């Protein structure tokens, strides 16, 4: 004899179990191919039984400074991507079929081109005698070439170009999920277009914004080819130092310690973004 409440719960629980089974292969794959190697890598940083490698990272001004520089760049890239991506996502929801196809094509095209090729393309465009500087000079707007490349600006341009689609798609998806009756109701109640955007559309799209920001921020932290090539040595990111330790100096325990610190910082930022947008998620249907 079971209580009626348990009877009602058991089909739901069974469904939950079935869903878990569906996800199991993916979870196993992630566990074997991702979680396990990551754990092994992290354990290398303390393989000698001390926290010496981790201390080297956190007590050394060099690595702390590079870490902050990386966070700063990742933050800048995220903000610029957001500013560029939100209007595009909004436009995509309103665009007709041709606009949508063209927009999607323009966003997806970069995905099919390697990061290295795109980075070299930017070098051709942004260089001292590159396409942009030559055009501006021919038009008489500038006399001396603008320093567009081999500095922080060049790195930001290159990284934003790679990462903007990662911001557009989550926001676009969130905007699509908004019930079209809601803005219509607001309009019926006399809200201005700005008020509709600020009080209906924007709050409801925040989960997408949060997802996009988290994605772009985390991916930015791992960049090393683009900053190395477009930064011309003026920009140093933590991933570049990890690559140096892994491939050149073969100090894997230290590379593991650097990775561990980067991972910890990433998780903290991730949690902070989650916390910040919790309210927004509760508000969404």
């Amino acid at each position, binding site marked *: 004899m079971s209580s009626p409440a348990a009877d009602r719960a058991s089909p739901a629980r069974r469904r939950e179990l079935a869903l878990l089974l569906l996800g199991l292969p993916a979870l196993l794959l992630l566990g074997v191919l991702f979680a396990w190697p990551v754990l092994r890598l992290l354990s290398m940083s303390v393989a000698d039984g001390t926290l010496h490698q981790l201390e080297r990272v956190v007590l050394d001004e*060099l690595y702390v*400074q*590079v870490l902050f520089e990386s966070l700063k760049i990742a933050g800048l890239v995220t903000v610029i991507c957001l500013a560029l991506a939100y209007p595009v996502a909004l436009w995509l929801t309103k665009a007709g079929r041709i606009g949508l196809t063209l927009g999607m094509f323009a966003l997806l095209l970069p995905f099919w081109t390697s990061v290295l090729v795109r980075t*070299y393309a930017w*070098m*051709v465009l942004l*260089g*001292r*005698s*590159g396409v942009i500087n030559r055009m501006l000079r021919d038009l008489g707007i500038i006399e001396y070439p603008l320093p567009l*490349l*081999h500095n922080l600006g060049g790195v930001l341009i290159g990284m934003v170009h790679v990462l903007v689609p990662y911001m557009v798609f989550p926001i676009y998806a969130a905007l699509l999920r908004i019930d079209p009756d809601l803005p219509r109701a607001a309009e019926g109640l006399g809200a201005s277009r700005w008020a509709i955007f600020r009080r209906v559309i924007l709050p409801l799209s925040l989960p997408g914004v949060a997802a996009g920001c988290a994605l772009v921020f985390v991916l930015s932290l791992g960049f090393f080819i683009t900053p*190395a*090539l477009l930064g*011309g*040595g*003026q920009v*140093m990111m933590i991933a570049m*130092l990890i690559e*140096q330790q*892994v*491939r*050149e*100096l*073969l*100090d894997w325990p230290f590379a593991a310690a650097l990775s561990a610190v980067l991972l910890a910082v990433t998780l903290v930022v991730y949690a902070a973004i989650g916390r910040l947008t919790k309210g927004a998620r509760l508000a969404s249907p």
Partner: protein
Amino acid sequence: MRQFTGRRPWILAGSGLAAGLLSPAIVSAQTTPPKPDRIVVNASGGAMNSIFRRSYFAAFERLHGIRVVDTSPVDFGKLRAMVESGNPEWTCTEIGGQDAMRAKEMNLLEPLDTSVVDRSDYPENARDSHVLTSSAYTTALGYRTDAFPNGSQPKGWAEFWDVRRFPGPRSLRNHPADNLEFALLADGVPMDQLYPLDLDRAFRSLDKIRPHITVWWSAGAQPAQLLVDREVVLASGWNGRFYELTRRGAPVATEFTGGSLKSGSFGIPRGTRQAYWGQRFMAVMTQPELQAVYTTEMGYPGLNRRTMDFVPAELIPLMCTAPGNIEKQFWLDVAWWTANAAIAQERWNRWMLRR
């Protein structure tokens, strides 16, 4: 031979099965191990691999009927990971100049079978037990001939440092190797007294040139590109990249004075399944006629003394080992860099970060 290649895997599988079933006596009676359908050679990639294909790969395939699959890039970390995993994918691999001796010391390489890999025509100091010295190259000074016409380019690093007599934006590599040596040469240290490097003095010297370096390059293709795009007028770089531009008629030439000579190396990752065929591939790589194809295309001379006999005479002055060029350069001290790479790199990172 050719028409059987499609069937070889089946023959192979059959012979493997037979070897497994029959008595060991028969197996050991075979002098050559069964032919695999392929070996994997890892090298720098790009133009280099396509020239390898035309020279060494084609010759090996003709000789042994085994396909050569090439991979890239050269990656010391990956080599170590492969050997430690016990099943290296590569049959042979190129190893970056500074890393070859380290690879040997870390026991990552199979010893070379001297009865197969004949290096009697090699210089004495290029006959290592584990490492095949495949070619020589140098980090030299590339310059635009329109900025410095008629031999008015800086000759040596003291003149590269002299920004008043030789104005214009410059590029150096974002790496301590070579640059520390160049900085010391610029500061007046004689070429034969560079090592052990005086780091303090080197960085003090680098402080002086720093404001004039507009780009610190990190990929080998960059210096050539920077010169062609007029981004800079002077750049350090691997001589093969400049050689290619000069041959194609671009206004770029190479100044060898103060160049940092190194050798490119190949090795057989320890524990690779096809080590036997790896030795035979290495043997193919020592042949002067084939080295000449590579030397002519890349500008990186092979080490076999007879190689130059097969290189067009007009190209010989562009080679880093040509008489007249080699005397003006120094050999990078691989042992010093092996021992001090980590310290030098960390100081370099610190120095780069300080603005």
